[in-house]
């Protein structure tokens, strides 16, 4: 086997393309959880926004209208989740799981009702978001490496991909270098302290949830109107849980979380390349076992390399001004 057989280039490109679904959702989770609200409902929000973006994009023939509608729905769900967690002081896990289950059913029912295609939307065709071709791509396309680097790795993606990558420093900045971020983190660590300092814990958490809603919707929109070009029932296929995993893996810190997302994207891509390839010594690994690669790697990395992950202290606990 040669180096060429590994297709490093294609793995990297594929990583870049796979990661945004997770990055958006993980950054959404980060906002919610750093403010103290467990966001196990990412999956449901991804699914709902994926459906709504696809349906609206199809109906209006405008992908941006789809994205906007996805944002709206995801924000509504996030606010509902916030209402359960913040105002009702209910169990946050229950709230999130309820949303996941409800959306898995509802998206199908509504899609079926409108489109009669078994919980699928029609193909978006021209209403998809298309890839950006960077200026000068044609000129450099044939230069070895640089051509690949500029047109394939850096260029040639949808706007949402760039947004996903740009989000990471932005989230970092908001979280650590703004007063909102400071308050948000305080609410997640010690809401009583934040409250005593005159910060409204509830309002801060609501805002965090709304942001989480917005970010999460991009994940769904990316899935439906960029990657697939239609909506299919349960198409999130666990992305929300994986994003949550990346976030825990990244110790609730944006950059590490981002690395976690890239890792999943990367091993997902490696796994594709490994299938059916004869490896030295091991030989050909059966396809079903190759599917395990990203997950096994995660467990090994978590068990072996990472220090204990430390969640925000007040996470999951409704804020009650009482002893």
């Amino acid at each position, binding site marked *: 086997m040669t180096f060429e057989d590994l*297709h490093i280039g294609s793995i990297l490109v594929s990583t870049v393309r796979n990661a945004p679904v997770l990055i958006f959702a993980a950054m959404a989770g980060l906002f919610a959880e750093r403010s103290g609200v467990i966001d196990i409902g990412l999956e449901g929000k991804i699914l709902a926004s994926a459906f709504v973006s696809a349906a609206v994009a199809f109906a209006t023939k405008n992908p941006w209208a789809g994205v906007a509608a996805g944002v709206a729905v995801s924000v509504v769900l996030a606010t509902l989740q916030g209402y359960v967690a913040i105002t009702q002081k209910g169990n946050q896990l229950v709230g999130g799981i309820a949303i996941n289950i409800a959306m898995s059913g509802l998206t199908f029912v509504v899609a079926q009702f409108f489109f009669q295609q078994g919980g699928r939307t029609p*193909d978006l065709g021209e209403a998809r978001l298309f890839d950006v071709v960077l200026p000068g791509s044609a000129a450099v396309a044939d230069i070895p490496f640089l051509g690949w680097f500029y047109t394939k790795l850096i260029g040639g993606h949808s706007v949402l991909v760039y947004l996903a990558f740009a989000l990471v420093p932005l989230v970092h900045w908001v979280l650590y270098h703004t007063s909102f971020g400071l308050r948000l983190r305080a609410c997640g660590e010690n809401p009583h302290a934040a409250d005593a300092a005159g910060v409204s814990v509830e309002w801060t958490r609501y805002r965090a949830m709304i942001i989480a809603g917005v970010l999460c919707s991009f994940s769904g929109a990316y899935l439906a109107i960029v990657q697939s070009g*239609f909506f299919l029932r349960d198409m999130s296929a666990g992305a929300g849980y994986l994003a949550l995993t990346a976030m825990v893996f990244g110790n609730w810190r944006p950059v590490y979380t981002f690395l976690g997302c890239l890792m999943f994207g990367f091993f997902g891509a490696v796994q594709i390349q490994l299938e059916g390839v004869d490896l030295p010594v091991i030989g050909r690994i059966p*396809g079903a076992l190759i599917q395990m690669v990203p997950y096994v790697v995660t467990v090994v990395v978590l068990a072996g390399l990472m220090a204990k992950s430390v969640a925000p202290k007040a996470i999951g606990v409704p804020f009650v001004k009482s002893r």
Partner: protein
Amino acid sequence: ADPKLGIVYDAGGKFDKSFNQSAFEGASRFQKETGIKFIEVQASSDTQAEQVLRGLARKNLDLIASIGFAQTQAVQKVAKEFPKVRFVLIDGVAQGANVNSITFKEEEGSYLAGVAGAMASKTKKLGFIGGIDIPLIRTFACGYAQGAKSVDKKSEVIQNMVGTTAAAWNDPAKGGELARSQFERGVDVVFAVAGGSGNGVLQTAKEKGKLSIGVDSNQNGLYPGSVLTSMVKNVGNAVYDSFMQQKNGTWQAGVTAKGLKEGGVDWALDEHNRKLITPEIEKKVTAARKDIIDGKVKVIDIRTGANCPA
């Protein structure tokens, strides 16, 4: 009186863009032509399959069509309990004097897909994307590879499976990703046998200017000019025929394996892919088709326990 007919889809549901949907279409065609209605149900789990079949059998239906191999055991069991009710099992083999098991020689149709693919491919690298790594899907893959090798010994088939859970049939993003990665490895024709995930494959092929091959129903029209052909598996015809036989009183129990000869599988040539199928390709495929029907070429079915020769 009109026969009382029923159809039981498996977990994929009647809109799965695959064999359930095809069965539904066959049954609908029958209804349209004869005006005879049928009851349809979806069984989401093996337990439910049994429940549904028994429930329908109790209603004294004359014929129940069970779609998908997952219902094999349930059919076998319920058929024994209700000897007067007739069962048609699609894609699986169940025992019983009142059961007709219909299987398809997917390997034969896939062989044609492989021939067409290898002819159309410039790189002689062909892709195959399956849903889950199960014998049925491997049968497609192996027939496809045999067909490709028959055109050019050196042609190579790269295989990927979408996943390991039921979600693998509904993951177009992953399907698209797999297709992309295959294209980057030099593949220029890809055969998708992955339910809803296959849509992602076909779509990506269209985007990347590559060729794809559809499956089960004729998918040529989905992305005209990009779908090279489709490996049509006539589940719909099988259901239609069974209903018709019941109506005409010609129904028979047994095991039917439907290949090219029996019209169970075929390749699709229509106005959508007419331009893609050059006279050479058409000639080659037609010849291969004839050879198989005549028995000159034997396509290996790996489900019999044989190793895939290609």
